[in-house]
């Protein structure tokens, strides 16, 4: 079986030059950095806060904080990793403010390894995503990932959706590399398990004929 191919890295050759120029007060250089990463920051923020308005605020606050603290960026890591770390912290702050009853922590540990052991091993259709129209698929994917514990979701989003390396994910979330790997495995397995009910072959694992495809629950997945 072939391995997952990492996303092609954004060229960073000119990035340090842009950061240096921005440090010197060149706002246009900083604007280029905003253009380069605003979509990523928005996605990450929305995955964490699960709220559109909060995500918009996180984009603004994270870039402004980065601009104000550029002098502290020493260049040991990529600018993007440093920016993601700021954005994650901003997003977590907003999430805690919105849901003070549920403490959200990066250190959150969830149950035991057992929660991730596969129970559903039915094979999927060859092109499972084509069983649904785009809106249905989006809803299924959104609701499924929203159901993950925040600490797993963040690792999965940074590592698998945004394409950060294990080391960069560990740095952005201030976690150890083994913690990133353990959470990534459990996040992947839990997502797989939950998607199986939508994507498995129509002739189910128990020999049960499924008359129609699983419908996503109606709800407010896309806030």
């Amino acid at each position, binding site marked *: 079986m072939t391995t997952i191919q990492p996303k092609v890295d954004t060229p960073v050759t000119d990035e340090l030059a842009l950061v240096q120029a921005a440090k010197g007060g060149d706002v246009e250089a900083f604007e280029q950095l905003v253009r380069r990463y*605003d979509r990523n920051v*928005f996605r990450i923020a929305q995955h964490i806060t699960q709220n559109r308005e909060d*995500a918009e605020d996180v984009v603004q606050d994270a870039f402004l904080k980065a601009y104000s603290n550029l002098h502290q960026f020493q260049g040991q890591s990529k600018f993007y990793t440093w920016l993601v770390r700021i954005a994650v912290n901003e997003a977590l702050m907003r999430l805690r403010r919105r849901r003070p009853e549920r403490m959200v922590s990066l250190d959150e540990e969830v149950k035991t390894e057992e929660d991730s052991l596969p129970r559903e091993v039915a*094979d999927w259709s060859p092109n499972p995503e084509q069983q649904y129209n785009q809106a249905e698929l989006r809803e299924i994917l959104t609701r499924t990932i929203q159901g993950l514990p925040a600490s797993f979701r963040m690792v999965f989003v940074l590592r698998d959706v945004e394409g950060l390396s294990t080391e960069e994910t560990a740095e952005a979330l201030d976690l150890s590399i083994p913690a990133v790997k353990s959470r990534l*495995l459990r996040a*992947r397995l839990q997502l797989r398990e939950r998607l199986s009910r939508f994507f498995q072959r129509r002739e189910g694992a128990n020999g049960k004929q499924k008359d129609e495809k699983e419908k996503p629950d109606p709800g407010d997945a896309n806030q």
Partner: protein
Amino acid sequence: MKCKEFLSELTNYLDGAIDERTKAELDDHLAWCHNCYVVCDTTKKTIEIYRDSQLYELPEDLRTRLRTAIVSKCHARKKAGPEHV
């Protein structure tokens, strides 16, 4: 190799972060264990579907609005003096 051992290496296997010898052992396990093959294959598909999905795209008009606000505040901080930048 048992299924539980295979699962513990699944992430490294999919990411290609293992040595040749371990990879050979995992490939061997996959060759005869249908359940692990299915779990491995569908986990890979899970990752690919999320990677290719367009969840939470930033609409272009909102993008422009946010960028304009950020740039304008950066200019304001720059004017306010170096201690504000």
